[in-house]
């Protein structure tokens, strides 16, 4: 840091909020209600019923639930090829299965490839304020996926291509869901956003990803595959319906054994 920067830093740090601001913040904090941080979780446990109406599930999305025991089983290799895992289940939303059947409808798959890396859009779930996208990535064979691998930058934007002026603001997340068994260079990620604005139904939305890296949020992040990928899909709202799934005795609902 040169002399100018040091002086800049010193003077900027001298800026202090006025007394009126401090008083206002004190008042706001004092007025905040006490919260029971486990209230939502407790309601989720109390509210279990044999048949659950889904808040937002596509009529045509294939949903298979793995309801986990305390010692969850590791899914077999290739389960995502055979079964579609609900993104809502991954995000621990309140769901319950009983018995029944599902319709299966495959979304059009989109693939963006560069010689070094292939990204395939597998599934998306959209409602007014949330987007969840499942992407399957095939990396060069010398890369083994683990939770430290991510992207330097990713974003959702409105339109059919990346446009920094049309970004959808909100809380974003990109998480590793599953590494392919026996193929450590293939993995499935979930990319999501809890949007600050209403997502226009059926309008095109683009997921933009830039530069796959290890430890992308660290100063010593390691570039793995340089590049930019855009995947466009229509923001078709998932439609709610009553769905039941044939359950079995060895399934668990939350922490409770499944009961027919």
């Amino acid at each position, binding site marked *: 840091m040169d002399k*100018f*920067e040091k002086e*800049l*830093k010193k*003077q*900027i*740090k*001298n*800026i*202090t*909020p*006025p007394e*009126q*601001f*401090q008083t*206002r*913040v004190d008042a*706001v*904090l004092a007025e*905040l*209600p*006490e*919260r029971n*941080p*486990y209230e*939502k*979780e407790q309601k989720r446990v109390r509210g279990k019923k044999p048949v659950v109406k889904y808040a937002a599930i596509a009529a045509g999305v294939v949903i298979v639930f793995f309801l*986990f025991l305390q010692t*969850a*089983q*590791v*899914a077999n290799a290739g389960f995502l090829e055979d079964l579609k895992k609900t993104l809502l289940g991954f995000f*621990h939303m309140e769901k319950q299965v009983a018995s029944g059947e599902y319709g299966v409808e495959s979304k059009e798959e989109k693939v963006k490839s560069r010689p070094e890396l292939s990204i395939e859009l597998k599934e998306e779930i959209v409602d007014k304020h949330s987007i969840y996208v499942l992407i399957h990535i095939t990396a060069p064979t010398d890369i083994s*996926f*683990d*939770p430290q691998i991510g992207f*330097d*930058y990713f*974003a959702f934007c409105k339109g059919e291509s990346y446009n*920094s002026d049309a*970004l959808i*603001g909100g*809380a974003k*997340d990109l*998480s*590793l*869901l*599953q*590494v392919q*068994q026996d193929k*450590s260079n293939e*993995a499935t990620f979930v990319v999501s956003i*809890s949007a*600050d604005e209403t997502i226009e139904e059926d309008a095109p939305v683009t997921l933009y990803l*830039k530069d796959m890296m290890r430890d*992308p*949020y*660290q*100063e010593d*992040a390691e570039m793995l595959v340089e590049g930019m990928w855009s995947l466009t899909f229509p923001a078709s709202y998932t439609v709610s319906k009553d769905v039941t799934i044939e359950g079995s005795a060895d399934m668990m609902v939350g922490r409770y054994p499944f009961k027919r």
Partner: protein
Amino acid sequence: MVSYHNVWEGRKHAIGERLSMKKSEFCDYINQYRSILYTVAYTILANEADTEDAVASAIQKGYEHLEQLKSKQKFKPWIITITKNEALQMKQKRMLLPGDEQVEAMLHPVVDRHDELWDVVQKLPEQYRLVIVLFYYDDLPMRDISKILDISLGTVKSRLKRGRDLLKAMLGNKR
């Protein structure tokens, strides 16, 4: 091989961690960061009344949506992002007409409590102003700045450099 079980267990732990934040802990965090929240909001809005409103709104919104916080370690960039968004929304709602910036300045004059440098920083184009403030005021890592402003790391670096060069030129002209 990373198993889904391990990912799931990690996620449950993170959920438990942020769910366990009570009011007192939230207030402690806010008290730690109230200065940077003021600075970010003021950088965007340039008047005290709106800055107070934006930060107050950000605190309330953050408290209501604590479930969006991925982990306590990310509280600072998270609450700064909310404050930035609140300030930007407030600025848009002012319904500025072309040429009304001068009217706004008259209605809500910038109180020149701060020094020459702050006045010059306020004159920077907005895209450089926030990067400069976040980097120099709070020593935020560039990666956190890129998340808060929703731009790539490369863009943070280029805006920082450009902002710095502009500041030098503007300060040089003043003297």
